[in-house]
């Protein structure tokens, strides 16, 4: 239990944002409301595109602020959009943040002068619960009644004026889509500044009121303080008062074990009376449209089918529709790099620009199509109300792993690419469940692994058939997907029983009515996601990409142009979805003239090459030699980079792709110093296993860093996935040799 009755700052009796002070600082208005109450639509309607998104300090909760032009002759207000919440008693981090902002405890965020409570007219009683708590903060409150048209259509007649009288605050009916009631809302907010709200309007049982009175002394303020002290989590700092409160709680607990529930029940009793007085109309038991849709959508048999179809479309979109724009970005940056080379004197600076910076920026932007598409669908599904149904359907399965039903969508998206998948975990409220989901997302075999699979299978398993008709290659790829999923399930189970130990996430989930998605909200959500990715993850990706470039460029072998750069460049410009690096996408046809042999020599001379030698003893038990080691190091930029790296090492030119005959030939013919073949089918399988399980992707590291707001989790992720990958490859290779497959 925690308190909702706090009003830590003195009551706003003088007009904090009145006309006189308007010149000094803008009015601060906070939007608070239940999820699905139409808060985002209202926020977008009030601010237009004048909004910015950031994080609250130290947490990953988004802080949305916009500019609200209240009236033409007044200074515009700062409008804060708080996370959706059902109650001010914090059970989730979102609610904690909202509570802190509303009570003026949030650093860098001024206490709001007016709180606009967004209330869904079709769901009045539950929405009013938060309003009762907002009234208890003693800050000026205005109620914005949304979905008014829908309520009318549902034959619910709400007497707005009487509702306002019962609540003791102004109530304004608004329809964000048609921009109705917005001016009236602005007026209500302006006239509410400095007006005290009624405070606590409900009464407890006589027994409880007795205790409150005993503690309160006299006056309304005393009563509220007493209520706060008795029913909040914390005890008052004053020792005498603390003892009095503890004794009161004990007495209450003796007479009623569920004593702590009283304020909650009392609020709803009060709400019922308010609703009775101001709502007319029959709340028919006739099944609503939503219920009729749900007869199919959450049906025992059809429900899963619909879910499968929806997910199929989403998956198809990020897996294949995104490839065209990604390819364009790819070529665009390839061309840009070429242009840079053509117009600058050859040298280190040009290399850095073309292969480090331009390739790095391209490597960031190449993710945008997938991110935009995924968040288009997620916003659409959230806004329409389907997302909760997906969680409802999947909850039983996901709970088996210890995860929330909402983890399903992010994990599925991760089969295309873990970056948007990890970003999509934001819908999971509980931080531990969210972290567990993030930690296993990279095990879903993403499309960047496909070039690796393709090369290995083309080189060693292309013609092989099992029982004469089952392609061994296809079977291997399927096994890799299953391996990723299996390890993910095991890891999730372990995490949820150790460092992320928590009771199975409770599911108390609203299934909101189906509504036509608001396209402005959808567009805004896409824009926000894209921008946050570019700004936060982008800088890390760019940095690592330049670092890797340097690793493969220095020390310089001779006067040759830096071929190590080409590796990173090829990786960066090659899209992350499995579009294999092709001749056109890599830049610098003229650049390659240095010759494949010299390029190979430079790479072997570079730090990366030397590192390959250094790690050889470590990776030898997996069946890998030092040349493959260089590939492993380089592929930290992005998994498919190993293909272009091997091409350079084996002197077939960096432009070879995963199915290029010369590269396949080179891989087959590669020899160890003792003359034995470097690659065998077993080494190839070991390599594939390693790639399924290791976090060979700097972009994932960057995005996890951003989503968890610390370096601890991404580094832990790299480490534990490396351990698992090493162990699995070790078992594969050594086990295979024991069985005589080597």
């Amino acid at each position, binding site marked *: 239990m925690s308190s909702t009755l706090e009003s830590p700052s003195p009551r706003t009796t003088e007009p904090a944002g009145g006309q006189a002070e308007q010149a000094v600082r803008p009015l601060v208005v906070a939007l608070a409301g239940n999820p699905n109450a139409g808060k985002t639509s209202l926020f977008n309607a009030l601010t237009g595109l004048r909004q910015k998104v950031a994080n609250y300090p130290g947490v990953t909760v988004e802080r949305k602020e916009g500019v609200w032009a209240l009236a033409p002759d007044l200074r515009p207000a700062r409008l804060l959009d708080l996370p959706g919440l*059902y109650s001010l008693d914090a059970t989730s981090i979102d609610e904690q943040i909202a509570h802190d902002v509303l009570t003026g405890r949030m650093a860098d965020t001024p206490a709001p002068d007016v709180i606009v409570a967004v209330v869904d007219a079709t769901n009045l*009683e539950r929405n009013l619960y938060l309003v009762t708590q907002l009234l208890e903060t003693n800050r000026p409150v205005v109620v914005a009644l949304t979905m008014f048209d829908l309520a009318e259509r549902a034959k619910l007649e709400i007497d707005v004026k009487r509702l306002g009288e019962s609540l003791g605050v102004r109530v304004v009916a608004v329809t964000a889509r048609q921009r109705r009631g917005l001016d009236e809302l602005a007026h209500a907010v302006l006239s509410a500044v400095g007006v005290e709200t009624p405070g606590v309007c409900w009464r407890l049982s006589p027994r409880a009121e007795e205790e409150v009175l005993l503690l309160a002394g006299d006056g309304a303020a005393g009563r509220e303080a007493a209520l706060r002290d008795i029913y909040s989590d914390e005890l008052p700092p004053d020792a005498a008062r603390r003892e009095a409160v503890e004794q009161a709680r004990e007495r209450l607990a003796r007479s009623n074990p569920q004593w702590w529930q009283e304020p909650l029940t009392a609020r709803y009793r009060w709400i019922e009376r308010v609703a009775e007085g101001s709502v007319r109309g029959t709340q028919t038991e006739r099944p609503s449209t939503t*219920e009729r849709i749900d007869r199919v959508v959450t049906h025992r048999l059809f429900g899963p089918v619909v879910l499968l179809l929806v997910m199929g479309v989403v998956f198809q979109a990020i897996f294949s529709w995104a490839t065209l724009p990604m390819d364009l970005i790819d070529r665009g940056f390839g061309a840009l790099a070429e242009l840079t080379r053509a117009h600058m004197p050859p040298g280190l600076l040009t290399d850095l620009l073309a292969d480090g910076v331009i390739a790095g920026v391209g490597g960031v932007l190449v993710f945008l199509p997938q991110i935009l598409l995924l968040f288009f669908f997620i916003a659409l599904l959230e806004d329409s109300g389907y997302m909760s149904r997906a969680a409802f*359907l999947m909850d039983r399965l996901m709970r088996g792993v210890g995860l929330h039903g909402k983890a399903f969508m992010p994990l599925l998206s991760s089969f295309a690419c873990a970056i948007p998948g990890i970003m999509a975990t934001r819908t999971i409220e509980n931080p531990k469940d969210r972290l567990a989901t993030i930690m296993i997302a990279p095990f879903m075999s993403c499309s960047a692994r496909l070039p690796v699979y393709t090369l290995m299978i083309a080189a060693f398993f292309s013609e092989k058939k099992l029982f004469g008709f089952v392609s061994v290659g296809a079977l291997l790829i399927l096994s890799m997907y299953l391996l990723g999923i299996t390890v993910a399930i095991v890891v999730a189970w372990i995490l949820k029983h150790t460092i992320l130990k928590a009771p199975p996430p409770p*599911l*108390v989930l*609203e299934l909101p009515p189906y509504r036509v998605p608001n396209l402005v909200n959808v567009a805004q959500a896409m824009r926000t996601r894209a921008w946050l990715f570019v700004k936060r993850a982008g800088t890390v990706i760019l940095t690592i990409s330049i670092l890797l470039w340097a690793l493969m460029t220095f020390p310089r072998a001779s006067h040759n142009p830096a071929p190590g750069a080409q590796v990173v460049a090829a990786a960066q410009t090659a899209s992350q979805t499995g579009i294999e690096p092709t001749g056109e996408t890599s830049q610098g046809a003229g650049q390659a003239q240095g010759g494949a042999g010299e390029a190979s020599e430079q790479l072997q001379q570079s730090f990366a090459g030397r590192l390959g030698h250094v790690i050889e003893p470590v990776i030898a038990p997996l069946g890998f030699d030092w040349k493959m080691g260089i590939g492993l190091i380089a592929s930290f930029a992005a998994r498919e980079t190993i293909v272009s790296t091997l091409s350079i090492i084996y002197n077939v030119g960096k432009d070879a792709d995963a199915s290029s005959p010369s590269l396949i030939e080179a891989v087959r013919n590669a020899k160890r110093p003792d003359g034995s073949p470097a690659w065998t089918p077993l080494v190839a399988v070991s390599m594939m296993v390693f790639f399924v399980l290791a976090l060979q992707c700097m972009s994932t590291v960057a995005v996890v860093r951003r989503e968890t707001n610390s370096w601890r989790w991404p580094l832990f992720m790299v480490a534990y996935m490396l351990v698992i990958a090493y162990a699995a490859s070790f078992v594969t290779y050594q086990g295979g040799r024991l069985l005589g497959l080597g």
Partner: protein
Amino acid sequence: MSIAYAALNPTANILDRAETFETATVSLDRLRVGAHARVLAVKGEGAVARRLMEMGVVPGAPVRVVKCAPLGDPLEVRVRNYHLALRRSEAQTISVVLES
């Protein structure tokens, strides 16, 4: 009483039935799909019980079981004119009185 009996989930064990017969109360998870009831008490403690009550599941509130998910869990109930999904384990902590 007979209506109360009819709305019971047939899997309820005999002991529960005996208890039920006396008080006409059951836990929410034992209601048949379509049954109407009124909340008598939320017996749980901690964050989940609090969340349920904040969502409107307080003593006296009418509830109706709408359906259960394809794998039998969670449940969908209608309360205060909206739909709420909750697990059977949570529904178990809510005792209700059947209504005809």
